[in-house]
C-alpha cells in the first residue's frame, strides 16, 4: 500500500482507539452505573492538556510564543500516567454535580454546562494552557529517540493505542462482571432500593467517576501524543454528544457495544462524510452530518434504545428472574 494510505489508516485506527477508550469510560459511568455524565469530554481534555504540559519543555522554549503552566519535559510514560491521574482528580468535583440528591436531568444539564464553562474559561484565560491558540509542538512519546513522523513509528503507535484499549476493556469488563458490577447496575436501576439494602451508592458513584475519569484522561493523552496539538476548538461540548450517540447506537451497558458504537459514529460515520464531494454552499455537508447524528439518536432511542449490541442478560441463579437491559434510558425513581 502507498505511504499515504498507510498514514491515513494509522490515523483512522488511532482515532478509533481514542474514541473506543473514551466510550468505554463513558459507558462504565452512564451505561453500567447510570451516572448521567454528559460532560465526559472534560476528562479527555484535561488528560490531553496535562499530558501536553508534562511532556513539553518550559514555555520559554520554541521561541516563547506559548504561555502555559508546567512544561516539565518529562519522558514517556510519565505524561500519560499524569494524564490518567489528572482525569481522575478532576472527576472528584464533577461528583458534586452528579450527586444523588440532584435530579438526574438537572445533573445531566449541569455536566454539559460544566463542559461549556471550562471550555470558555480555558479559551480566554491564556496563562493556563495558552488560551484559544492551544498547545502546539507537543512532543510525541520518545520523540527524542525516534522520528515520530516515520511510518514504523506511526504503526507502532497505533498498535500500542489499540493494546491500551484492550487493557481498558479488560479492566472495565472486570469491574462490571464482578459482584461490584452487580451493585453498580442495581444503583443504576433503582438507587433507592440499592441504598436500602445497604449499598453505599455515593461511594460507588465516586469510584466509578474516578475510574471513568482516568480512562478519559488516558484517551486524551493518546490523542495529543498523536496529533501533537490541543486547543479548545477540539473539545467543544458537541464532542460529548458524539460519544453519547456512539453509546446509544452501539449498545448501552455493553462494552463491546460501546466500542462498536465508537467505530460506527465518530469514526465511521463522521469519516465517511469526508469523502462526500462538497455540494451546495460550504459547510452544508458538516451541518447535515449533525442533522443525521441527531436523527440517528432519536431513531435509536425510539426503535432500539438498548443499542445494536444489547446489554448481556444475566442469570443470577436458576430460580431468579432474568436481569434485562434497563428501561428506555430512565433511572427509575423519578417521576416524569
Amino acid at each position, binding site marked *: 500500500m502507498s505511504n499515504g494510505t498507510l498514514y491515513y489508516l494509522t490515523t483512522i485506527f488511532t482515532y478509533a482507539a481514542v474514541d473506543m477508550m473514551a466510550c468505554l469510560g463513558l459507558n462504565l459511568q452512564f451505561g453500567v452505573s447510570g451516572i448521567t455524565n454528559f460532560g465526559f469530554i472534560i476528562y479527555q481534555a484535561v488528560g490531553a492538556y496535562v499530558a501536553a504540559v508534562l511532556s513539553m519543555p518550559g514555555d520559554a522554549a*520554541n521561541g516563547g510564543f506559548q504561555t502555559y503552566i508546567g512544561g516539565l519535559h518529562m519522558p514517556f510514560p510519565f505524561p500519560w500516567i499524569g494524564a490518567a491521574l489528572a482525569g481522575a482528580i478532576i472527576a472528584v468535583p464533577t461528583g458534586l454535580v452528579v450527586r444523588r440528591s440532584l435530579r438526574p436531568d438537572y445533573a445531566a444539564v449541569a455536566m454539559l454546562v460544566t463542559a461549556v464553562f471550562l471550555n470558555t474559561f480555558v479559551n480566554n484565560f491564556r496563562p493556563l494552557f495558552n*488560551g484559544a491558540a492551544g498547545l502546539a509542538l507537543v512532543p510525541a512519546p520518545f520523540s527524542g529517540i525516534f522520528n515520530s513522523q516515520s511510518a514504523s513509528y506511526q504503526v507502532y503507535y497505533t498498535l500500542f493505542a489499540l493494546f491500551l484499549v484492550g487493557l481498558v476493556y479488560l479492566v472495565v469488563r472486570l469491574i462490571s462482571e464482578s459482584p461490584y458490577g452487580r451493585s453498580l447496575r442495581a444503583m443504576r436501576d433503582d438507587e433507592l432500593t440499592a441504598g436500602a439494602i445497604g449499598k453505599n451508592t455515593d461511594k460507588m458513584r465516586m469510584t466509578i467517576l474516578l475510574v471513568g475519569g482516568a480512562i478519559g484522561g488516558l484517551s486524551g493523552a493518546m490523542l495529543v501524543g498523536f496529533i501533537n*496539538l490541543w486547543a479548545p*476548538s477540539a473539545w467543544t461540548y458537541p464532542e460529548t454528544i458524539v460519544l453519547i450517540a456512539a453509546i446509544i447506537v452501539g449498545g448501552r451497558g455493553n462494552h*463491546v457495544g460501546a466500542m462498536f458504537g465508537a467505530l460506527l459514529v465518530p469514526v465511521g460515520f463522521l469519516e465517511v462524510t469526508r469523502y462526500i464531494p462538497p455540494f451546495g454552499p460550504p459547510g452544508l455537508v458538516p451541518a447535515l452530518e449533525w442533522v443525521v447524528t441527531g436523527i440517528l439518536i432519536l431513531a435509536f432511542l425510539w426503535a432500539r434504545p438498548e443499542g445494536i449490541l444489547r446489554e448481556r442478560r444475566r442469570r443470577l441463579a436458576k430460580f431468579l428472574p432474568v436481569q434485562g437491559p434497563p428501561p428506555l434510558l430512565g433511572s427509575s425513581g423519578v417521576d416524569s
Partner: protein
Amino acid sequence: MKARKTASSIGTGVPVHGSRKRSRVLRAAGVGAAFTFSLASVAASAGASTRASSPASSGGSVVIADLSPFTGPDAALGPGYLAGCFSASYVIDSHGGINGKTIQCKVFDTRGDPADAVPAARQMFASTQNLFMVVGPTSDEASAVVPIINAQKTVVFSGTGQSEFDKSPFPYFFRLTPPDIDTAYAMIAAAHFRYHYKKVALAFGNDIGSQTFVSPAIQAIKTLHMTLASNVSLDLTATSYRSEVAKIVASHPDVILTEALGPADAIFLSEVKQLNGGKMIPVLGTSATIDPIWYTAVAAAVGAQTLQNNFAAATLGIENSGPAYRTFAAAIIAEKKNISNYTKYLTHPQTLHFYDAVTLAALAAVEAKSNVSSEYKKYIKPIANGVPGATVVTSFAEGVKLIKQGKAIRYIGPGGPTNFDKWNNSSVNFQLDKYGPGGSTVLLGSVPNSEIKAAAG
C-alpha cells in the same frame, strides 16, 4: 418494541455460556467492521472530493490541494486561497500545463480545528496519488499539519502569520504572507505616519490568528510615542460586546485596530457606532478584513457608506495594474464559474499571493523537468528571488518560454517581488486599502518599509 421480561417468565433466560460465545462473535464482528471500513476507505479514495478546473487532457493531471478552513469562523479563508489556485491553473493549463500535466484544484476542509485538520491532511495524502503541492494551512491548524506535510516531502505554501514559523525548521514550508508582527507594525505605522493618530484602541478576536497582533502593536505604540487608549479582546462566540465597546468609547481613541472574524467584527463595529452617539470611530484592519465575506457582514451591520468612509486595512501589497496583474485578472474572470463572487477576488490579497505561489512552484517544476516536490523544491527560491543576470517574467507563459531557451528567470507576479530569506519566509510590501462602492477594494497608498522599520524599533 420488545416487552421487558417480567417475574412471570422464570427460567426462560438465555443461558450464560451461550451469551459469552455470542459476545466473542460480536467482538470479531466489530473488528471485522473496522477492517471492512478500512478496505472501503482505500477503495473509496479514488472518489475523493474534487472541483476539477480544467478539461480532461491526454497528458494526465496533478493535484493542488487547498488544505484550509471552509467551515467555522475562519470559513472565509479557504475560498480565497482556492481562487488563487483556480486562476493560476487556468493560466498554466492553457500554456502546456506543468510538464504536460493539467492542474486539479481539490478542497480538503480542516474545519478550523486541529483535531479535524490532522485526519484531513492524512486523508489528503492517502487519496491523492499525484499531489503536486499544498496551499493554505492557516493559524488554526498549521502547527499540526505542516510537520505532516513536511514529513511527506511535499511543497506547502502556507497562509499563517504565526511567529512560530518565522524561523521554521521545515524545508518544504514556504510563506508569502507576512508574519503577524509585521502586519501589526504596518498598521501602527500607517496610523502614525499617514493619519497622525495619537490614541489607539486595540480590539482583536481571542482566537489564535488574531491575538498575535496585540503584543507587537503595543510595542510599536510605545516605540512611536503614541498612547494605548484601551485594549480589549473579543470573544468570538459572544453575541454582543457592549461592555467592551463602552470601555473603548470611554477612552476616546483616535482609531481602533481590529481583526475579529466570524460575526464578531460586524457586531462589534455596529455597537461602536451605537454607543458613540451614532458616529463611527475610524477603524484599521488587517488583510483578513479585506475579504468579500467580511465586507458583506460588516456593511450589513453598520451600513455600507459608514464602512466605506471610516475603514482602511493594512494589507499585503499587490499590484492592480500592469502585465502581471492583467494575466491574473483575465484568469479569474475565465474561472468565474468555479469562483463564487469572483469579482471580489480580483483584488483579494491572499488570492493574488497564492496565484503567485502556484505559478512559482509550476515554473520550478518546469525547470526541474519533474513534478515531484523533492526534485523541484530547490528551484523555487532562485526563481523567486532571482539570480544575477536573470530576466524578469510576469507570467507562467513567459517563464516557460525562457526556461526552454535555457535562460535564468525571476518571476514577479501581481503580488509583487518575492524575497525568500533562509527560512523561506518572504518579506512583503504593505499597502493601505479601503472599500469602495459595492465592496470593491480601493488602493489608498503603500506603507513604506522605512515607516514599518521605524515602528518596529
